[in-house]
């Protein structure tokens, strides 16, 4: 419950997970079914968001497949194994680590944990280096590869460098409240 209001946690649970219905469900128009029965038959294959899948799976109403980016036979695993730092994780799953951490205990796949750890370790190092060295012109291109969490780390790295420089060189202490933005009123 600690994360009830956490927007990132909410959005991580929005990621889709492939699932198969084990029972027929009445009264739901999930998939704009053309007939009026509003029924989802047993055996239907669908992609459902994690928040729904999780509860249904615990009650054994659906069976789930591991999302492609965590699958043992998937390309993602091979690519991470080859060169983790340059894999485009954002397009595969912007909440890669969060979703991984949620799904691993659910399906009891022991290989996901170490896989995430390896990926994070290698990529973290790269993120930190890039945060300190990249110029503004190249940064946007690199940022498109990062998951949400990594992008935050990247920004944290940059802001700490900026803070360090400010501390060393000195600068104005009082500043406009960040909420009001840096907009100045137009002249005249």
């Amino acid at each position, binding site marked *: 419950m600690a994360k009830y209001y956490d927007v990132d946690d909410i*959005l991580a649970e929005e990621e889709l997970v492939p699932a198969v219905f084990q029972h027929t469900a009445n*009264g739901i128009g999930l998939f704009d079914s053309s007939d009026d029965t509003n029924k989802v038959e047993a055996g239907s294959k669908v992609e459902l968001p994690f928040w*729904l899948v999780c509860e249904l799976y615990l009650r054994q109403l659906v069976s789930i497949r591991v999302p492609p980016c965590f699958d043992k036979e998937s390309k993602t695993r091979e690519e991470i194994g080859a060169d983790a730092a340059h894999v485009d994780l954002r397009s595969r799953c912007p909440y890669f680590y969060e979703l991984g951490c949620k799904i691993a205990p659910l399906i009891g796949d022991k290989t996901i944990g170490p896989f995430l750890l390896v990926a994070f370790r290698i990529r973290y190092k790269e993120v930190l280096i890039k945060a300190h060295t990249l110029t503004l012109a190249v940064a946007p291109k690199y940022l498109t590869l990062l998951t949400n969490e990594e992008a935050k780390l990247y920004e944290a790295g940059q802001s700490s460098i900026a803070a360090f420089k400010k501390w060393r060189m*000195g600068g*104005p202490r*009082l500043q*406009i409240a960040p909420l009001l933005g840096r907009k100045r009123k137009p002249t005249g």
Partner: protein
Amino acid sequence: MYGKKASELVKECVSAEPGQLTTFNNDLFAQVIEECNGHLLHLQPLMRKIQEHENKLKDKRRSEDEMAISEDERRKSEAEKTVIQTAMKSDQFGALIHHLSLVRNKRCLMAYVYNRAEVIKSLGWVVDCVLPEEIEEKLSSSEKEYFKNHAATLQSYTSELDLDLTVDMVPPKDPYIKVRVLDDIGEIVLSDQVANLTRHAMLFLRRTDAEQYISQGLMEELAG
């Protein structure tokens, strides 16, 4: 797909710069609530059906207990019972999905309101009671009310303590700082002088006087 709109609402929260507000999305907010009502409308008949199925099962059991029936009839009634049970399970399944969607939507709505409220609360520390226009138009009416009450509470606490809590936490090296005025403010009585604050004027002010203008973006501090 259920819960899609609610997540769009939350995404809006995330896409805003940290500490900044976006315009309150009345439209989407209402749509999500509409969706919740839809779930409720689906949920109620399903719950009724489940109740009916349960009653039927109970009746069946009672009649079995009361009357001694032949083997053949018993088998038939067993088969009927399983049919009812599967139907009930399907209804329960559907009801569960609606229930979970409701809970999810609620969480998204709550998070949206809560995270905005947090930002609004922090506003109370930087601007005195009066919101700048460009921010005020982004708030919903209840949020405006919330800000007003929060700022009032903060003020009454400050006056009770007889200590201005909104000033900078780090003690200054020099009581005076050099500032540049960014906007025409006009003649103002400060604690030690009467200053005519015109645009682009540069002057030495008492730090405590300057602080509120700087945080409102009307002045900037000049280093060195």
